[in-house]
């Protein structure tokens, strides 16, 4: 068994409205920041796990992402994995 660390990023699918991101974007001019045309809010999860190899680790984290971390109706997820 080897130990891995995964970063799972969950974001709203394109076309799904994001009132949180839009509000952040609208606040930027008040900070003197200009030129930002879009902000989309999402979530990130760091997961540590033990698995036989990288494929097994990736498969487990993808299952975890699809079954609970993201709601596939409105969100998509991406996984990046590194051995520890």
């Amino acid at each position: 068994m080897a130990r891995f660390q995964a970063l799972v990023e969950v974001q709203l699918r394109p076309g799904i409205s994001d009132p949180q991101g839009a509000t952040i974007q609208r606040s930027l001019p008040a900070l003197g920041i200009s030129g930002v045309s879009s902000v989309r809010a999402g979530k990130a999860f760091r997961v540590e796990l033990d698995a036989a190899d990288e494929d097994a680790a990736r498969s487990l984290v993808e299952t975890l992402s699809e079954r609970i971390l993201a709601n596939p109706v409105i969100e998509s997820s991406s996984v990046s994995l590194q051995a520890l």
Partner: protein
Amino acid sequence: MALNVAVVVFPGTNCEHDVAEALEAVGARPHLAWHGEPGLGAADAVIVPGGFAHGDYLRPGAIARFSPVMSAVSDFARSGGPVVGICNGFQVLTEAHLLPGALQKNAGLSFLCQMAEVEVASDQSALTTGVAVGTRLRLPVNHFEGNYTASPEVLDQLEAQGRIVFRYVSNPNGSAHDIAGVANEAGNVVGLMPHPERASSELLGSADGLVLLRALLVATGARAAA
């Protein structure tokens, strides 16, 4: 004979006693069903009430979906049993894939706690049996994630199949198609963001919620007698 209604309680649920009291007011016999138990007890219908199941961690309903009781709720729903999710209970039922779509953060990013007027858009659901389409009801809403979202294909399907059960007269949260509540294809599973149990007495500003709870008992009784 009084109908038995299981009221599901997760850690963080907070509307179970209001729901039970409103059910008693319309002559049902409610009992609480703890989320950690694998069964629902003797139940003719099930209500998943509002609150903050499992602290709303991750997403509202995301963790509740995996509670042991939800297998029993799914089995009951698939066998045609009437299941109603109110507010957080609606969110739980969408996460459990018993209802389509998802509830997103309100468009205005405000937590809404106000009276809402909704119009009954279908009388083919377990919660609106015998309630005329077009009937307007005053029911309180109390939510941060009530903005109903689904793909255009799913929304078209809901429209075509008459599965939009309630629409807001004045949309408070950005919900697609002004949706306040939807049903599954068979009509026995219904979810809505407004709280019928909080409109159970004129003293509370409205007794319109009793119309829906009585309709639920009509649908439940018809099924129990069949």
